[in-house]
């Protein structure tokens, strides 16, 4: 699938999102639930703000010493008999993964949820060599069954679907006969998936946190599917973004506490799966062969820039769950597997401004994301930094806008110019004023007045009133 989803232009995607009332109902209901959950879980923990600061410090420290910790991780995975591969690009990662699969002669692959494998289009690469790749996360599986409908959320990929729609997908594609009750739907999925787990020759997972000093990869799930995917198949491949690392178990514990609370308002998820290399002597289960693929795919270019904090992300989706823009346009409007505020920051960094130049503007800068982020990434500030880049370096801002900003500088950096401008504006607007408002504005006002009225300028500017009053007072 790759990071980019669909080919429609931004405006079309947004129009589609805005007119999908099913999706919007599902999204706003989920937002309400998830937001409340997060706030309750945070309150229950007590000093949430201290935890957030601690989380921020951990991410900052780790990213500042990323090479050191990656080396430590590689050493420890190797010591435990695992293989490590550094992939600079998506192609390199896929080549390595398909080679491992080919060597094993494997045809059936079971996956647990992973954003990075979506990002590099791993499924497609494996399908090309004739493999059957089965998603085992319930949400991902629903989308896969629904002819590869793209994910619209990084934690709950099928968030845009309600239970009736899921029932219909199962009915149409798999001959499901029961109702839309979540229990019945889940039971059906479970039966289908169990067979896949037992038949799979290779298991592929993502990674929530890799622990450098023990060489462990950890996975956080509610369905236990990562545990199945890491224990049943004989060969196990873990694919991780290169920033998905912590120094030791101690930091992992802090971040998991933040992650589960911020993501879904849980104190702890149902399963935290830890895998340290292949099965050792005397172990009853676990894979015989273990591969760790560390994916760069544009991440090292972000290191050392003003966007480094974007790599602090622990993919909890709290920012998405509070975003008022996401609420209305839904995940697919972002045209990336990374939607919402973090997607608007990350997608242009990984995928370039050509495809994603609108995303940094698809925000009111209300800072709900920044407030919600458990590791304190200043998301709305990073969006402003993108806008600066687009204006200054890329020259991609509309001509009209850059002209009006030049006028802005002239008008606001000098009181004389401001005075002239603010006196002139009411006169220029006068022809458009009817009944104390402007309902049909000219030029840039048009987009405003297509939706709402614009106030008529005051008869007397405040500053003139104040001045006159002072004069009056000095007279009396």
């Amino acid at each position: 699938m790759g990071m980019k989803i669909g080919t429609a232009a931004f405006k079309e995607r947004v129009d589609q999102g805005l007119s999908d009332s099913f999706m919007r109902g599902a999204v706003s209901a989920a937002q309400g639930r998830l937001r409340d959950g997060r706030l309750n879980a945070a309150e229950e923990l007590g000093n949430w703000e201290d935890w957030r600061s601690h989380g921020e410090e951990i991410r900052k420290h780790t990213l500042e010493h990323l090479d050191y910790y990656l080396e430590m991780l590689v050493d420890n995975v190797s010591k435990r008999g695992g293989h490590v591969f550094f992939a600079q690009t998506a192609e390199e990662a896929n080549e390595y993964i398909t080679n491992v699969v080919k060597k094993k002669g494997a045809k059936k692959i079971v996956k647990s949820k992973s954003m990075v494998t979506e990002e590099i289009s791993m499924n497609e690469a494996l399908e090309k060599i004739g493999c059957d790749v089965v998603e085992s996360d319930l949400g991902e599986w629903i989308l896969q069954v629904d002819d590869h409908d793209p994910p619209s959320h990084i934690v709950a990929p099928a968030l845009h679907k309600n239970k009736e729609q899921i029932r219909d997908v199962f009915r149409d594609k798999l001959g499901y006969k029961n109702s839309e009750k979540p229990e019945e739907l889940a039971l059906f999925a479970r039966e289908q998936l169990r067979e896949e787990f037992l038949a799979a020759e290779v298991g592929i997972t993502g990674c929530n946190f890799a622990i450098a000093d023990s060489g462990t990869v950890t996975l956080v799930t509610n369905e236990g599917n990562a545990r199945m995917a890491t224990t049943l198949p004989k060969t196990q491949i873990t694919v991780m973004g290169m920033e998905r690392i912590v120094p030791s178990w101690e930091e992992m514990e802090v971040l998991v506490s933040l992650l589960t609370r911020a993501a879904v308002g849980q104190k702890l998820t149902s399963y935290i799966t830890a895998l340290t290399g292949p099965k050792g002597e005397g172990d009853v289960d676990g894979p015989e062969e273990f591969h760790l693929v560390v994916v760069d795919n544009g991440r090292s270019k972000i290191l050392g820039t003003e966007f480094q904090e974007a790599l602090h992300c622990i993919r909890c989706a709290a920012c998405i769950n509070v975003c008022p823009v996401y609420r209305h346009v839904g995940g697919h409007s972002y045209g990336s597997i990374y939607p919402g505020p973090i997607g608007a920051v990350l997608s242009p960094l990984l995928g370039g401004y050509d495809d994603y130049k609108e995303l940094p503007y698809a925000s009111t800068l209300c800072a709900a994301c920044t407030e919600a982020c458990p590791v304190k990434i200043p998301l709305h500030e990073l969006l402003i930094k993108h806008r600066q880049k687009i204006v200054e370096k890329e020259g991609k801002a509309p001509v009209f806008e850059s002209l009006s900003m030049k006028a802005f500088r002239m008008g606001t950096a000098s009181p004389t110019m401001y005075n002239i401008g603010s006196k002139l504006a009411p006169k220029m607007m006068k022809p458009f004023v009817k009944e104390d408002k402007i309902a049909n504005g000219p030029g840039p006002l048009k987009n405003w007045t297509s939706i709402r009225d614009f106030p008529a300028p005051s008869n007397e500017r405040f500053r003139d009133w104040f001045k006159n009053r002072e004069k009056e007072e000095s007279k009396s």
Partner: protein
Amino acid sequence: MKVSLFVTCLIDMFQSDVGRDTVELLEHLGCEVDFPEGQTCCGQPAYNSGYLKESMESMKHMINVFQDSEYVVTPSGSCGTMFHEYPNIFAGDAEWEPKAIELANKTYELTQFIVEVLKVEDVGASLPARATYHTSCHMTRLLGVKEAPLTLLKNVKGLEFTELPDKHNCCGFGGTFSVKMSQISEHMVDEKVRHVESTKADILVGADAGCLMNIGGRISRTGKPIEVMHIATVLNSRK
């Protein structure tokens, strides 16, 4: 107490009565209000659009304008927030960073100033009406002023107060967002207006001219019988 008013460009040009209410209110509370005449705009429209260079010139200008002020008070949470951003924007600049910090430290949003500095919780206003309050994003989240406006509103005689559902959600203004992404903005402001209607309030109160222009403009366009009022006007009502 001497107070310099930072009135903001929107209020200066489009809602001068809010500026007057602010002056009268502060004087009623015993302040001596001056209006440094050189003031223009805080730079936010350009800054938020990514025009850093352009915005920094107006910021420097504003720093100079308020250099001698003891307190700077503004009836706009968002523009007040912008003054508080200056130190980050000028971080590392030997000449301007200290000046930016000085300005930020003495700048207050109007209700914040009344409650935190003047230590007044009841301004003696009265307004018989049913009201709800829109918490604007920058004032609440970035400036951290959450309680002050509510404290003051609750002490307005005759004012019956109902909380706005989903008050944490942005109204869809976002400066240039409102025109650049007007299709999205429309849905956001409509949801806000629906929530305001659901409270059955006669008056929607807010502390930010931008948000009020957005919500008010939509209310006026759709012909809803709801009056939009700046908090300075409410607090200056003696009916």
